[in-house]
């Protein structure tokens, strides 16, 4: 299988770096699967799970909340605003995130800012839902 270089970086550290076969990311306008040779692209991300399929194993999952993905011929990079290993995520963490998003929303005055924060909050709530159902299954 053709592989490509992939990096998942959060402001605090590099979460993943290496050659992968495919990456599935939650872009704002729908999920994107990136394979080797994908057309150059920049997309913003929403809250969700990034699935990284490394060469042999079954894939690693990461939680990201906002950020963007840059795909070019050389390498693919996700700049996540927040990123964690999915194992480290639980309901309490998500509730905390939702709470921070809510406080931010009530605290902001700017209309554009409000719209953006509201979107982020909706995305987070959606993800919480998905996360809960995944755990139940």
């Amino acid at each position, binding site marked *: 299988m053709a592989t490509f270089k992939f990096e998942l970086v959060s*402001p605090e550290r590099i979460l993943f770096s290496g050659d992968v076969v495919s990456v599935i990311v939650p872009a704002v306008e729908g999920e994107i699967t990136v394979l080797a040779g994908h057309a*150059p692209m920049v997309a913003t991300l929403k809250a969700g799970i990034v699935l990284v399929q490394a060469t042999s194993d079954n894939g690693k999952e990461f939680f990201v909340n906002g950020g963007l993905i*840059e795909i070019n011929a050389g390498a693919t990079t996700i700049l996540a605003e927040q990123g964690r290993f999915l194992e480290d995520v639980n309901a309490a963490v998500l509730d905390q995130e939702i709470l921070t998003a809510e406080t931010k929303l009530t605290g902001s005055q700017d209309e554009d800012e409000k719209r953006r924060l509201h979107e982020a909050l909706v995305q987070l709530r959606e993800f919480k839902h998905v996360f809960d159902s995944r755990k139940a299954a």
Partner: protein
Amino acid sequence: MPSLKDLRNRIASVKATQKITKAMQMVAAAKLRRAQAAAEAARPYAERMETVLANLASGVSGSSAPRLIGGTGSDKVHLLVVCTAERGLCGAFNSSIARLARDKANALKAQGKTVKIICVGKKGYDILRRQFEKDIIELIDLRAFKQVGFVNAEGIAQNILARFANGEFDVATLFFSKFKSVISQIPTAQRIIPAEIPTGAPKTEAVYEYEPGESEILETLLPRNLTVQVLRAILENAASEQGARMSAMDSATRNAGEMIKKQTQLYNRSRQAMITKELIEIISGAEAL
């Protein structure tokens, strides 16, 4: 001539001081390793962000560019964000950042510009307050946070952005100390609004697809870029502070060691002199009989 007791006390007190500086040095060394790792871990994100931003910004033309890149069109009011440490005893670390900021503020004032200052960290405030009491609009205290992270940087960035949106200033400059090595920290001034776009960045040949539009991405990216720049400044500063403290405490320990050596020699010499004197007294007393 100090008495033997005086000398003994003096040596004891220098020894106690040496113990303190030695301990501070070791604590700084341990903290430095953590701070340095954090600063280095944050670098790839900031670098990546810069290249993406450079690619995006090269696409927008002068007048249609967002204000965070294009500026407000004037440069009357300058905001200086001065990041320093919360604690002293770290050599020239705080004063060299403050000096850089002070020189800049004086130069701007000489040109008839208005200067506003936000201090991040108490030490810089203490130094700048003497001259710019009226210009300092805010002091951001990070002492309560043990591990300064993205959340703090975001708070500061939001604060700056809100002031920018209110039209409180036209140009913002960030002052911090770049961590080069344990013995060398470079005080740096970086313009953050309007954003400094690295020119001559290697242009990728590829034409990007954007999802959603180019301008929407740029709009979300610019405030985030500000946060990242602030975060980088704080983390670099933390590493620099520990490095500066380590080398300052190292030389303090060495100075104390030298002082102990000198005082001990003096003590031994005067003790010897006293014994000789007593001996002479006894001998001459016996001879007189």
